[in-house]
């Protein structure tokens, strides 16, 4: 469904992505792994139009999406749930969710989406009138995902949902990815936490210094010891 073809981008004049190609098939869960600074977040920022693309192409359902504005990309059903949650901390939980459905005009459908979000994360329903800034880290992450789901995305791009969250809650949050997939939404998950991500993924890419250095089915990569080595610095023996 989403295809990135030899995408190049970066900040200022330094490249952060070198011809990265990646495909997310309809309804699948694809994960992008890699150590800090590998270019994972940059990849999502390019895909959602936050960061200009320098070269290569992005296609969604075969439609050319390169250089489209974030607004148009959201309209096309690609929603990016950013790293570090980035919730609107002064708005209530309810208002945060409303913002998620900003581009939707159908109130009834939006209401249905909200009920769905509450069924995934009952805690949010309990705190619906609370200011988002007063939520715990895990609840904020739930809210961030819930907010993205309010746009009823066809592809959810999730950036480091485990960041700074206790392991137990992470399991709970990632547990709902299965439900989301069942609804027909594809997921592109960016994670540092490799074991966790590979548990859920159909297919995985490993980025290093802005290049895809490994790819394969999730279960295959999970058994590959080279992943661990990449994190703990035995780069020379791994190559």
């Amino acid at each position, binding site marked *: 469904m989403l295809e990135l073809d030899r995408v190049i981008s970066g900040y200022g004049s*330094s490249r952060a992505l070198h011809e990265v190609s990646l495909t997310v098939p309809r309804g699948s869960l694809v994960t992008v792994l890699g*150590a800090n*600074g590998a270019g994972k977040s940059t990849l999502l920022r390019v895909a959602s139009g936050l960061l200009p693309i320098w070269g290569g192409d992005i296609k969604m359902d075969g439609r050319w999406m390169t250089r489209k504005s974030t607004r148009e990309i959201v309209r096309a059903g690609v929603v990016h749930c950013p790293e570090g949650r980035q919730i609107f901390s002064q708005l209530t939980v309810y208002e945060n969710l409303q913002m998620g459905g900003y581009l939707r005009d159908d109130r009834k459908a939006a209401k249905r989406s909200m009920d769905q979000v509450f069924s995934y994360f009952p805690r949010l329903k309990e705190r619906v009138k609370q200011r988002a800034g007063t939520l715990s880290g895990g609840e904020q992450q739930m809210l961030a995902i819930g907010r993205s789901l309010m746009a009823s995305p066809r592809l959810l791009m999730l950036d480091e949902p485990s*960041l700074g969250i206790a*392991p137990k809650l992470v399991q709970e949050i990632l547990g709902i990815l299965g439900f989301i997939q069942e609804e027909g939404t594809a997921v592109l998950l960016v994670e540092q936490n490799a*074991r966790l991500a590979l548990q859920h993924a159909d297919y995985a890419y490993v980025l290093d210094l802005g290049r895809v250095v490994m790819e394969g089915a999730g279960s295959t990569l999970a058994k590959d010891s080279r992943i661990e080595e990449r994190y*703990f*610095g*035995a*780069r020379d023996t791994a190559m």
Partner: protein
Amino acid sequence: MFLEFDEVTLRFSGLVALKGVSLTVNEGGIFAIIGPNGAGKSTMLNCLSRIYTPQQGAIRFLGENLLRVAPDRIKACGIGRSFQNMELFSKMTVEDNLLVGYHCALPSNPFSEAVGWYKARSREREARERVQRVLESLGIASYSRQTAGNLPYGIQKKVDVGRALMGDPRLLLLDEPAAGLNELETEELGHWISDIKRAMKTTVVMIEHDMNLVMSISDRIAVLDFGELIAVGTPVEIRQDERVIRAYLGQEA
């Protein structure tokens, strides 16, 4: 005791960034602080250079509680630091960037400077010679007259470290020195940090994500997770610590 964190706790509006961290660093050697994103590593350095003030605890350097020292006196205490995003004086020349790093060691007053008296000038000359020596040791002497903000990323990183090194600090804090460098540059950086330790007898405390670098040059490593210290030890010990592996790779299913 060279450097000691004593039960340091720091909260940001409800969020606990450091939970009673206690840690000692001995003089000499390279001490690395690692941990997943958002674990509180930079916060620790920022407490050391007094950008943040912890609500509880003490940080002692050579017996003095740093929390009672004004932020602009930290450098004079012998602590130099580099920044994660460099914070260069981007519109000034490389030479001037390093000269600002030598600020404390340059006694003078605005009046004699305004008139351009000889005394002020001779001290200046000496300071400039020191800057040249540091730039040469970093291999960037040829950039001395260029505007810092216009240089390539890798050179800027070196300028940042050079600025911290001015005035011969006894403790050098490096915040992600390898971030954004390629493999070759990182390798060079590793040699070069080891050189600083040896030649200048400076103690280095660094935060770093590149495990290759950390494991190969550090003498001791501290691991933070969720604002708590979960392990301290040699690289070999850390590599085998199950808590550390879990913090990085997550729970085994």
